[in-house]
């Protein structure tokens, strides 16, 4: 009865019976949303999880999950982790630096608006077009390729490393840095001037303020943002797919192979296991992210 009381109060002069009916009625309004999410998000996810533990015959089996430990998927996972870690690190450090350069400009300045808009495009639009932008820069007859070939006599056919892990790290940084700016800027903006002034008043030098106040305050937000970048890179597909058309050096591209050729490692539906692996990694990282975010929002909110 205590639970229905607020609802009964919302409907004036209702008898108790009506109050009880109301507590179920409004929930029905959520049905379309829940059904839609159920069909297009939950069912596919459950399909992946169940499929990963199913044998070809349909019974329970650890065969596919165990196959994740074989050399090809393991190497792809390792490369994926290296790529995600490196691009998250580069993105977090440089992105935080850029965010600081921006936050020291007044909020209405053109610089600030331009940088946040550009970062919004590069971080969220992403994918294929960014890959092509770098191919046009460093690929065959690219702008920088030609320029460097003319000046330094480097290989005029372009940089083959662009299509391998170092290239992926470079191109990923191109959307990781802007993403960092977007997610880290609010934390920097939350740094109150009073804290600096209070520290200075109590005798802190600029260096002491940064080491003892600003860095400890920003640390959780920085780590949280870096984790978000990591998950973003790990789940990214389009850029790598556009850049690397053959072979599968990283997990997302191995999933592509599993989907398009149906049989990888002699296993039909191995894609389910790989997708499960991806869910697990991203879920762990996002869980940590949410935990850190809760902590900073208390400080910098």
């Amino acid at each position, binding site marked *: 009865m205590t639970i229905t009381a607020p609802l009964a109060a919302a409907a004036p002069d209702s008898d108790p019976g009506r109050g009880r009916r109301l507590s179920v009625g409004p929930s029905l309004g959520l049905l379309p949303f829940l059904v839609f999410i159920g069909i297009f998000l939950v069912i596919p996810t459950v399909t992946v999880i169940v499929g990963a533990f199913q044998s070809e015959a349909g019974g329970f089996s650890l065969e596919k999950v165990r196959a994740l430990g074989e050399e090809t998927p393991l190497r792809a996972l390792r490369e994926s982790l290296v790529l995600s870690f490196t691009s998250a690190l580069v993105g977090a450090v440089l992105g935080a630096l850029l965010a600081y350069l921006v936050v020291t400009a007044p909020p209405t300045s053109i610089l600030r608006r331009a940088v946040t808009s550009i970062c919004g495009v590069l971080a969220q639009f992403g994918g294929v077009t960014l890959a092509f932008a770098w191919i046009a820069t460093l690929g065959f007859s690219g702008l920088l390729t030609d320029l460097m070939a003319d000046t330094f006599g480097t290989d005029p056919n372009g940089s083959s490393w662009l299509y391998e892990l170092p290239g992926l790290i470079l191109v990923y940084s191109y959307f990781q840095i802007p993403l960092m700016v977007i997610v880290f800027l609010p934390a920097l903006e939350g740094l*109150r001037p*009073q*804290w600096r*002034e*209070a*520290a*200075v*008043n*109590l*005798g*802190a*030098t600029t260096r*002491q303020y940064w080491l*003892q*106040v600003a860095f*400890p*305050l920003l640390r959780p937000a920085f780590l949280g943002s870096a984790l978000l970048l990591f998950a973003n890179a790990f789940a990214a597909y389009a850029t790598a797919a556009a850049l690397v058309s053959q072979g599968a050096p990283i997990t997302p591209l191995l999933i592509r192979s599993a989907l398009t050729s149906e049989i990888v490692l002699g296993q039909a539906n191995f894609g389910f296991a790989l997708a499960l692996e991806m869910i697990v990694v991203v879920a762990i990282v996002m869980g940590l992210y949410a935990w850190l975010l809760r902590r900073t929002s*208390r*400080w*910098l909110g």
Partner: protein
Amino acid sequence: MSVTQSSSHSAPSTVSPGLAVEMTALRRTYGTVNALDGLDLHLDPGEMVVLLGPSGCGKTTALRILAGLERQDAGTISVGGRDLTHVPANKRDMGMVFQAYSLFPHLTVLDNVAFGLKLRGRSRKDRRQRAGDMLDLVGLGEQKARYAHQLSGGQQQRVALARALAIEPAVLLLDEPLSALDAKVRVQLRDEIRRVQSDVGTTTLFVTHDQEEALAIADRVGVMNSGRLDQIAPPAELYSSPATRFVGEFVGLSNRIPAQVDGETAVVLDARLPVLPGSAAGAGLALVRPESVSVEPDEHGHATVVSVAFLGPVSRATLTLDDGTLVMAQLASAAAGGLVVGGRVRLRITPSPVLVVGA
């Protein structure tokens, strides 16, 4: 130097004699705005001075320049005879309490208070001891291990006060420390600040726009108006003898009643009153407090009752003179019972000196 300020209390061992503060000819402009226009301000050792004024009058600028958080364009500052004019903020030894949200959110209450001591290289044991003492002083000894977000606004400001005092500052600065709190806490904390300040005896500059607050806690109140100090005086004197029209109108409520000045006296509503220095000559308006106006029903009076508002122990009557001037009178609620809206009344004015300003 005298320590009489704190003798009446059971003062802790932290009593410092207090230092004199001298601010001379301070100027500061922002673009075309004169935030400070040649401000001179002197604080006696151990004294609490409150700067009072509307927003934009320059009071906060004055405080921040004294703290070193802002630069003056011209003028000098010295504390205890030491010239601080070009000393950076972190070398000035000023304890400051901000409007709100100035506690470091990543540190516990105890670590916040110990922060300045740590910067001064005091030992860990020493810091904890001193910080604990300061928290006891502001009545938060039990909250040492908490974080800022676990405290109420009033408690946060107490911690900020303890933090500012922990470093035994040369001067204590308070920048509208109560403005973000609700009314009840505000009154309570303001008395608390006054008690702690007289306990430790630190010279204090307090900035506020709330006149009641200023009159309640200050040794002297300085009223600021467009970058200058209009008057600085003990609260009672400021209230009874305003030096300028601005002070008279900003501090407390004032009626403006037509008056005729004649030498040292003025005629206001048939009464002859002494005038304060700085009054205008000839015809003008006398600034008269509502409590200086008494009212009695009289068929042949020269005013009419417009309304009577009951405020508890006192009531406030609004009246019109026959020339149309509105006058407010404050009287005991018992006396207000005899007033009828629309009734004729006679006004009398207490024969204390008044300020007469140009019409």
